[in-house]
């Protein structure tokens, strides 16, 4: 199964990953429409940490033993059979924030734009390649098969 690998040394902090993640999860899927009309309702699921020359784009690590799934009280966090991605079913999420409390990389955010739900990367399970990977101008994110044995 493929996972997103982060290359901190190539991240330039441009945040195009956030831009395209938002578009991929918008209703219109059109970059201009999404930003001009859906900005108040859609959140990117990738977040860029930056401090001077060091930066990287962080999203859900799709852990093998996901703490968020363990902690989810509503059963909204579940594993997608096809991609193996951990996805939050926002129609079942109640915004209790237990997942935020346990995610060791802090990849889950509060989505307070509409009904309160947890927002996290879903590996763009609906597309061939995650939007952030496809649009990073410096290959700071790649999509690769990871040695499952080495992962948690």
């Amino acid at each position, binding site marked *: 199964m493929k996972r997103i690998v982060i290359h901190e*040394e*190539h*991240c*330039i*902090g*441009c*945040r*195009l990953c956030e*831009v*395209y993640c938002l578009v991929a999860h918008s209703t219109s899927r059109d*970059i*201009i429409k999404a*930003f*001009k009309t859906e900005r108040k309702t859609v959140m990117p699921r990738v977040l860029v940490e930056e401090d*001077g*020359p060091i930066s990287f784009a962080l999203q859900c690590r799709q852990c093998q033993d996901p703490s968020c799934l363990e902690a989810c009280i509503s059963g909204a966090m579940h594993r997608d059979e096809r991609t193996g991605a951990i996805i939050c079913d926002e129609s079942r999420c109640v915004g209790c924030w237990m997942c935020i409390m346990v995610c060791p990389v802090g990849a889950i955010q509060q989505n307070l734009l509409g009904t309160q739900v947890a927002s996290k990367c879903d590996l763009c399970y609906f597309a061939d390649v995650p939007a952030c990977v496809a*649009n990073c*101008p*410096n*290959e*700071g994110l790649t999509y690769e098969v990871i040695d499952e044995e080495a992962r948690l």
Partner: protein
Amino acid sequence: MALSMSTATFVVDRDETRCITCQVCVRQCANDVHYYDEDGDRVLSRDDACVGCHRCVSLCPTRALVIRQNPLEFRPHANWTAGRLRDIYKQAETGGMLLTGMGCDQPYRIYWDHMLLNASQVTNPSIDPMREPMELRTLLGRKPERLAFEQGGALAAEAVPGPQLELSIPVMFSAMSYGSISINACQSLARAARQVGTFYNTGEGGLHPGLYAYGANTIAQVASGRFGVHLDYLNAVAALEIKIGQGAKPGIGGHLPGEKVTPDVSRTRMIPQGADALSPAPHHDIYSIEDLRQLIYALKEATHYAKPISVKVAAVHNIAPIASGIVRAGADIVAIDGMRGGTGAAPTVVRNNVGIPIEVALAAVDQRLRDEGIRHCASIIAAGSCRSSADVLKAIALGADAVYVATSALVAMGCHLCQNCYTGRCNWGIATQDPYLTKRLNPNIGERRLANLLRAWSLEIKEMMGGMGINAIESLRGNRDHLRGVGLNQVELDALGIKAAGC
């Protein structure tokens, strides 16, 4: 404070129907041209600071930006152009030398664009490069005058060639120092040289420890400042090059502004941090051709005569006897850098007014060495703005064994020729030491793009060679008969040693 008469060179046009206020341009401009206005929730631009590097244009996800030349017009004047006026305004304000980067941008005649290559038609038919092997392999170094054998078939002593550099394609990456360009740019050049099977030149910045691994594909420079020159440096590489001058600024030394002398650069060059690194104009131990010979042989001794020694000079007025002297002094390779060659920093007035074009210099040197019967003693490398595979072939036809490219390589890596290298704020991560900017050139991508460029050129070279009925690049070397001039006067044709088209 008195009034400044400098006006913006460029104007930023933002299409508000396309701008999504993502602020990528704000983050990516090293000159802080774009900024976010919170009150209006929009991105605005300070045109004055724009250098026309197109970083923002390239990254804008909706292509909302266009950079145009400032349409501000002076009253038309063929002599006092806008550029001339601006230069004087600037100098009146600052009292300093005007600095610039990259190669001469003035409209001197470009001889490559006035020479055309031959093709086979009826006799001596073309060769199809898809069907028959094309030899682009090039060997640089001293060749024997003639073949001679001993009894028993072994090569006679006088027929043994000197140490050679083997190139898979007659193109190498020219000297660009670590300091003038970033470590990521150096990495890209080194890796691409290794991948393609050619060489890159360290320039006068010394060799960074992280690059010793590519030593087999490295030509190390010994320049007037002797930056980074120590015994390990000399022995780690495939060849050495004594840099007497470079085409962009003949007669003066290298110039690395203090902003670019970081701890890493300081260590590699063996100079103090933060101070301007100005190489002296001459080597202070080379004041005659005999002195040059001494240095050449000192380097050969230090490297056990195992590596070719190159001498690089700028193309100037008496280049032919200069080159002859260099070859007789024992150099295995002579590199000639024409006036359109690039640089990381040079006084504009020197870059634009000093030196001669590579095409005529090359022709003169090749002819003089042939006339003196010493053409085989050294290989000639032509440098100074080869922009395409056609320029490469024309250079070889004029007499070069191979060419050095630098500007083409930088452009391949993303350079947009904004000519602001000397500020150290290269938005493409190339001519900078700022770690934040350096990251923008991912060496994996840089290597890929450079290797792609050389691969594309080698395919084109094979096509053109095949078209000429030639299957080995050696056959084209100095073969002036494959060139014809257009739009040149007789003096120029004679200087190049070619006939006019139609003759």
